[in-house]
C-alpha cells in the first residue's frame, strides 16, 4: 500500500473470471502522515481509504471481466460497514465479487479481512467506459504488472 499515491493494492492473489471473483492483499503501512491526523495518539486506517481499497479491488476484477478494454469508475457506495478498527501494519485480505453486470455499469460486493476476521464490507456500483486516453490505459497496464494481474485470466476468460 502506498497511501500517498492512492495505491491501495499490493498484489492479486486470486482472480477467477468465470466465477467473477478476485482476492488481493494489501499491507497497511506502519507509518504515514495520515495516521498523524487520524488519530493523534491512536492511529487508525480511515474508513474512506478502506472503501477505496474495496473499490480498487473491485475495479481490477471488472477490468479483467472487461478484457482490459474499459475502465471502471466508482459511482456509488452502499451498505458500507466499518465493523472493526484497522491499524497500521496490518495485512488486509480483500475479496470482491460481481453482483450484477449491467449495460455500462456493474455492482460488486467487497469484504476486507485481517487474519480471517471481517473488518468492513460494502456494495459498490461502477460506471465503465472505454479508456478515456492512452495515458490512463498505459498507467493501468503498468500497475497491472506490479500487482501481478494475471494476463492469462483475460486470454482464457
Amino acid at each position, binding site marked *: 500500500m502506498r497511501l500517498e499515491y492512492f495505491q491501495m493494492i499490493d498484489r492479486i492473489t486470486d482472480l477467477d473470471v468465470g466465477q467473477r471473483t478476485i482476492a488481493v492483499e494489501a499491507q497497511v503501512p506502519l507509518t504515514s502522515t495520515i495516521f498523524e491526523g487520524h488519530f493523534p495518539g491512536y492511529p487508525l486506517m480511515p474508513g474512506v481509504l478502506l472503501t477505496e481499497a474495496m473499490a480498487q479491488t473491485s475495479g481490477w476484477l471488472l477490468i479483467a471481466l472487461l478484457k482490459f478494454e474499459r475502465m471502471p469508475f466508482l*459511482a*456509488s457506495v452502499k451498505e458500507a460497514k466499518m465493523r472493526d478498527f484497522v491499524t497500521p501494519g496490518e495485512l488486509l485480505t480483500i475479496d470482491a465479487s460481481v453482483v*450484477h*453486470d*449491467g*449495460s*455500462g*455499469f456493474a*455492482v460488486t460486493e467487497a469484504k476486507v479481512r485481517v487474519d480471517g476476521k471481517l473488518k468492513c464490507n460494502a456494495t459498490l*456500483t461502477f*460506471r465503465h467506459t472505454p479508456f478515456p486516453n492512452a495515458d490512463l490505459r498505459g498507467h493501468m497496464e503498468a500497475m497491472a504488472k506490479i500487482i501481478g494481474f494475471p494476463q492469462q485470466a483475460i486470454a482464457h476468460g
Partner: protein
Amino acid sequence: MSTTFDQVATIIAETCDIPRDTITPESHAIDDLGIDSLDFLDIAFAIDKAFGIKLPLEKWTQEVNDGKATTEQYFVLKNLSARIDELVAAKGA
C-alpha cells in the same frame, strides 16, 4: 398480476423515494420525475433483476446522443415498459 408499468413505477418509487401516486405511464423519468443518471443506474439494476434482462442503457444513450432516438422513446415510462416487455419476450424466444 401487476403490469410491467406497475412494477417499474414501484421500483422507481422505492429507489428514488418518489411518491408512487405521482408516477404515471406518461411520466418522463428524467424531465418529469427528476431522476438523474446515477439514480437511473439503481433503477436499471432493480429492473434487470426483477425481469431477468439487461436494459441496453449504453445503446439507448448512444442513439439519443446520435440523434437517432429521443429520450421520450426510452424514458417515458409507458415506452420504457414496452421496451422491457420486448426484452423479456426476446429472452424467452
